[in-house]
C-alpha cells in the first residue's frame, strides 16, 4: 500500500451505533473505496470479569463467566468448571459428562446459527436467512428450557457434574428436533450457498493463508477455514469426546466463503455428535456433590475447551482459600479481531468487503472485552 498522505485518507468510524457493528467501534482508513487499515476499538462491554471472579467461589463463578458469550454459554461455563475440577482433583460421573457434551453441542449449533445469520445480513441485508436462523433457534431453546430451566444463561454446570438430570421423557422430542433441523440445514444450503450473488460477494474475499492464520493467531473455524486442523476436541479430548466419533472439518481455500462453509458443516457434525451422545448415555448419578464453601487445595490448572468461536482457556490459580486467587481467560475473539485488523495488509479489501470479512470471523465483542 503506497503511503498515502493524510489528506487523501478518510477515517470512517463504525461506532457502537451502526447496523453492522455490535458493541464495538471499528475505525477504517479508506482511500475512496479501498481500505488501508482496520482498527477495532473494543472495550465497550468490559465488565472486568477476571476481577469479579476473584470475589466469587467456584459455584458462584459460573454466573458471570457465562455472560461472556451469551450465545455459547455452555462451552465457557464448561472450561471454568473443568479448571475447578482439575484443582479439586475430582472427576464428574459418566452420565454428567454425556449431558455436558449434549448441551455444549447444542450451544455450538445455536452460536453457529447466530454467526451464520449475521454473515448473511453482512453480505447485503439478506434478511430472510437471518430471521430463518432466529426461527431455527427456537426449538433448541425450548429443549434447553426443558432441561436446564432457562433459555440462555443456563448456570447448569457445577464442579462435580450437572445441576439436574437429563429427563428421559424428552429423548424423542430431542431426536425429532434434530430431524427438523437437518431439513432446515438443507434449506440453508440451497438458499444460501448456491446463491450466485453471495458467492460473488464471499468467494476469494479476505483470503487467509494457513501460515498467516497461525502467525496472526486466528481461532477455531477461521483457522480450520484456512486448512489448519486444530480442534481441542480431537487434540486433547475432554469429557467424552474420545468415545464419540466425529470429523474435524477443514476447508483449504481460506476465504470468507470457506469459513462460513466450515461453520455450516460443523453444525451438521454437531447433530451427529448429539445423536450418538443421546443413544449411548449411561444411567447413574449425574452429580458428585462439592460444597461451595470447600477450601480449594493450593495449585493451578489450565483447561482448554473448543467453543464455537475457537479455543478458550481458563487458567485458575488458587492459594488455598474458597475463592480462586487469580483467573486468566484466553479469549478467542481477541485473537480473531487482531487477524481482522491485519487483513488489509494481507489481501486487498474494499469498503463493501469489510462487513463480509468481519462477520465471516464471527466476532463476539463481549468475549474479547471480558
Amino acid at each position, binding site marked *: 500500500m503506497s503511503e498515502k498522505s493524510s489528506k487523501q485518507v478518510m477515517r470512517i468510524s463504525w461506532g*457502537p451505533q451502526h447496523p453492522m457493528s455490535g458493541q464495538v467501534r471499528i475505525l477504517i482508513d479508506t482511500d475512496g473505496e479501498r481500505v488501508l487499515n482496520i482498527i477495532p476499538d473494543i472495550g465497550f*462491554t468490559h465488565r472486568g470479569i477476571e476481577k469479579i471472579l476473584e470475589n466469587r467461589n467456584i459455584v458462584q463463578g459460573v454466573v458471570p463467566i457465562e*455472560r461472556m458469550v451469551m450465545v455459547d454459554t455452555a462451552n465457557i461455563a464448561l472450561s471454568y468448571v473443568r479448571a475447578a475440577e482439575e484443582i479439586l482433583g475430582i472427576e464428574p460421573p459418566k452420565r454428567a459428562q454425556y449431558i455436558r457434551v449434549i448441551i455444549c453441542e447444542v450451544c455450538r449449533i445455536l452460536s453457529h446459527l447466530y454467526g451464520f445469520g449475521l454473515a448473511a445480513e453482512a453480505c447485503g441485508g439478506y434478511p430472510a436467512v437471518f430471521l430463518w436462523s432466529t426461527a431455527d433457534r427456537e426449538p433448541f431453546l425450548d429443549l434447553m428450557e426443558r432441561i436446564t430451566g432457562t433459555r440462555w444463561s443456563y448456570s447448569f454446570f457445577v464442579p462435580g457434574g450437572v445441576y439436574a438430570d437429563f429427563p428421559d421423557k424428552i429423548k424423542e422430542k430431542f431426536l425429532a428436533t434434530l430431524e427438523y433441523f437437518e431439513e432446515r440445514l438443507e434449506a440453508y444450503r440451497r438458499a444460501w450457498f448456491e446463491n450466485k450473488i453471495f458467492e460473488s460477494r464471499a468467494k476469494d474475499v479476505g483470503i487467509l493463508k494457513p501460515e498467516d492464520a497461525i502467525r496472526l493467531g486466528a481461532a477455531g473455524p477461521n483457522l480450520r477455514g484456512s486448512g489448519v486442523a486444530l480442534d481441542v476436541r480431537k487434540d486433547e479430548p475432554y469429557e467424552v469426546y474420545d468415545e464419540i466419533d466425529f470429523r474435524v472439518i477443514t476447508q483449504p481455500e481460506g476465504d470468507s466463503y470457506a469459513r462460513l462453509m466450515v461453520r455450516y458443516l460443523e453444525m451438521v457434525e454437531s447433530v451427529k455428535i448429539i445423536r450418538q451422545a443421546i443413544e449411548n448415555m449411561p444411567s447413574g448419578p449425574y452429580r458428585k456433590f462439592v460444597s461451595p464453601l470447600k477450601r480449594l487445595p493450593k495449585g493451578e490448572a489450565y483447561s482448554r475447551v473448543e467453543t464455537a468461536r475457537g479455543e478458550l482457556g481458563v487458567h485458575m490459580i488458587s492459594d488455598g482459600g474458597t475463592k480462586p486467587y487469580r483467573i486468566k481467560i484466553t479469549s478467542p475473539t481477541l485473537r480473531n479481531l487482531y487477524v481482522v485488523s491485519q487483513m488489509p495488509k494481507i489481501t486487498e479489501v474494499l469498503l463493501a468487503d469489510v462487513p463480509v470479512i468481519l462477520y465471516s470471523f464471527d466476532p463476539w465483542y463481549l468475549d474479547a472485552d471480558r
Partner: protein
Amino acid sequence: MTKKNQTRRLIVWDVFNQVYKKIIGWGRKYSLWPAHFITGCCCPEFMQVAGPRYDMERFGILPLPSIRQADVLVIIGVLTRKMASRVKMLWEQMAEPKYAMAIGACPIDKGPFYDSYSVVRADEIIPVDVYVPGCPPRPEAMIQGFMILQKKVEEGV
C-alpha cells in the same frame, strides 16, 4: 366578540385538540422505531423478540439503522462506562418525542456484575421510561415492556 362566540370557539378548539391528541397518539403508539444499537449481553434475546416467533413488528416496531429517525433508545444488557458516554451522545442526537427503555437486570442495578468497576446503571446516564428486569428477560417480558411504553406514549402526547 360576544360571550357566546368565545365559548363556541373554545369548545371547537377543545374538540379539535382532543381529536388531534387521539390521532397523533394512536400514530405514535403503533410506530415506535428503535435504533440498531446493542449495548450488552442480552442481545440474542432481543433478536429472538425480533424473530418470527415473538415478532415485535406486529406492534410496528421496526429497527432502523440511523439514530436520527429512531424514537426509542433501547439499552439492551449491561452498560459500561465507556458505552455510557456514547449512549449520552446518542440521546442528545435523537429527534424529540424520544423515549428510553432499559432491558435486563444490569441497566437497572448492575445485575450479576454488582461489584464491577466499569458497570453503570442506566438512569445515571439518561432518563429511562420503562425498565424490563431479567437476565436475560424472557421475550414476553420485553414485549410487555414495549406495550407499557406504547400506553405511556399514547397518553403522554
